[in-house]
């Protein structure tokens, strides 16, 4: 699940650069257009062929829907269960969004505090790492012992998502250009002025990179915790629908819910990429074409 966003990241990050080219010869513009069309068309063709083969195999081999439903049936289920599934999508997205917001604030906030005091950084950074490397699926049942299911799900989403924000922002804050830092101290800038006018803008691209990873991860965290919570008989998010449908052998609905989770992940990723691009398009190397 974590592989998909990272491969999509590379594909996406090259595209905005292509759009920024100005004054390029017509032939180059046309070649670029073809390249973009191919990038869009090829995965769609693969999807269409894959779905057709799937549908054919299920029909020709007479596979019963409780073993493997055909794509057509999954689509029908999606439409038939739309009210139920839409509610679940909203529940899961709400948790994901809240977890993401907390992770963003927590990650950036901790990074700033760590950057201001080496003492605090040395004291607490190892525990942030421990929180990150312990699989969340193993932490979730324990959290459910102490917290309301909804709160536990939120905490899980936060635990998974905050670390990339913390790690990336910390790196950004530490990699400020030395000459610029000298310039600020030459003009007698206060710590707050340095933080606000130099360190945070400098760290912004790193921070946004962390947030892009955190968006996907907060969905992972929310789903993992929902699945753990559903065995305790609580919740109504998409992941809960999946385990519920599993008990009832409603395999088409499992697929339908899974499809929606995937779509949610894709939307989250592209939304964050868009924010990233809008924030950096004027100045950062990643969003600009190199000078000829």
């Amino acid at each position, binding site marked *: 699940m974590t592989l998909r966003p990272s491969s999509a990241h590379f594909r996406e990050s090259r595209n905005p650069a292509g759009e920024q080219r100005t004054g390029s010869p017509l032939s180059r513009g046309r070649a670029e257009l073809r390249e973009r069309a191919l990038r869009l068309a090829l995965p769609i063709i693969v999807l269409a062929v894959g779905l057709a083969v799937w549908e054919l195999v299920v029909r020709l081999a007479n596979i019963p829907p409780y073993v493997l439903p055909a794509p057509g049936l999954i689509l029908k289920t999606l439409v038939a269960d739309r009210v139920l599934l839409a509610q679940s999508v909203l529940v899961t997205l709400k948790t994901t969004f809240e977890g993401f917001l907390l992770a963003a604030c927590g990650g950036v906030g901790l990074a700033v505090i760590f950057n201001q005091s080496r003492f605090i950084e040395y004291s607490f950074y190892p525990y942030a790492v421990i929180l990150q490397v312990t699989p969340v699926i193993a932490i979730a049942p324990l959290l459910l012992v102490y917290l309301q299911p909804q709160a536990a799900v939120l905490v899980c989403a936060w635990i998974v998502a905050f670390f990339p924000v913390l790690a990336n922002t910390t790196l950004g804050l530490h990699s400020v*250009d030395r*000459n*610029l830092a*000298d*310039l*600020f*101290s*030459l*003009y*007698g*800038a206060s710590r707050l*002025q340095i933080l606000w*006018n*130099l360190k945070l*803008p400098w760290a*912004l691209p790193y921070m946004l990179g962390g947030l892009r990873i955190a968006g996907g991860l907060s969905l992972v965290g929310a789903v993992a915790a929902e699945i753990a919570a559903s065995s305790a008989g609580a919740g109504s998010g998409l992941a809960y629908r999946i385990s519920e449908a599993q008990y009832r052998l409603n395999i088409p609905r499992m697929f339908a819910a899974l499809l929606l989770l995937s779509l949610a992940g894709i939307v989250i990723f592209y939304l964050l990429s868009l924010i990233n691009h809008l924030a950096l398009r*004027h*100045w*950062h190397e990643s969003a*600009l074409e190199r*000078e000829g």
Partner: protein
Amino acid sequence: MAAVMASRSASLVALRGVGKIFPNGVRALGGLDLDVREGEFLALLGPSGCGKSTALRVIAGLSEPTEGAVQWLAGATRRQGDSRIGFVFQEPTLMPWASVFANVALPLKLKGLSAPKAAERVEAALERVGLASFSAAYPRELSGGMRMRVSIARALVTEPQLLLMDEPFAALDEITRFKLNDDILRMWQTLSTTIVFVTHSVFESIFLASRVVVMAARPGRVFAELTVDAPYPRAEDFRTSAEYAAYCRRASEALAQAMAAGGEA
């Protein structure tokens, strides 16, 4: 020896027996005595690694000497945090996320100057370096020479008493460098400020400076001093004159001796 003593005017800042040993044990400066006189254009000339940049950082207060003292003329700029020092780095060192205007306005902003008051001075500084029409541009959109001009405008915006320049044109092509040399001389004359200019180019130092101090390495110290008496304004005719060539030859000789004394090949 090519050293010539110049007529003494008041020292704006004086380094007395300044030494600097870095934490890794490297002795960058040792027994450095240097006077920066008010209103002069002083060039620090030396081979790479002779500590000329370190000397500049010590003057700016960005680096504390491990021995000796830095004395300021009474009533003059003291040290770090004083807007009457301007510093131009070897790189343009601009904030990539900020427009040209915002970059030049930075020193005033850090001083807490109100935006309208700052705007006038920023525009004047940009006018001075010939970039008045680029105030909304981002550094990425400018050429190397233009970025360096922005950097100079930023250093000038506080109207500094002392402008410190650390090999500012070393990374630029020769045509751009000559143009900027002409411009910096014109600015120095109209602003009547004091400039300390670090360079490893004999030709640049003679063209610009009223006094050239040649430094030797290991540890960094003053090796020779050369007063360039040619009158300002200096332009293309000075650059091609026999007088200029003669000064360059003397400076080159001093530099060669300094390098021999500093143990360089």
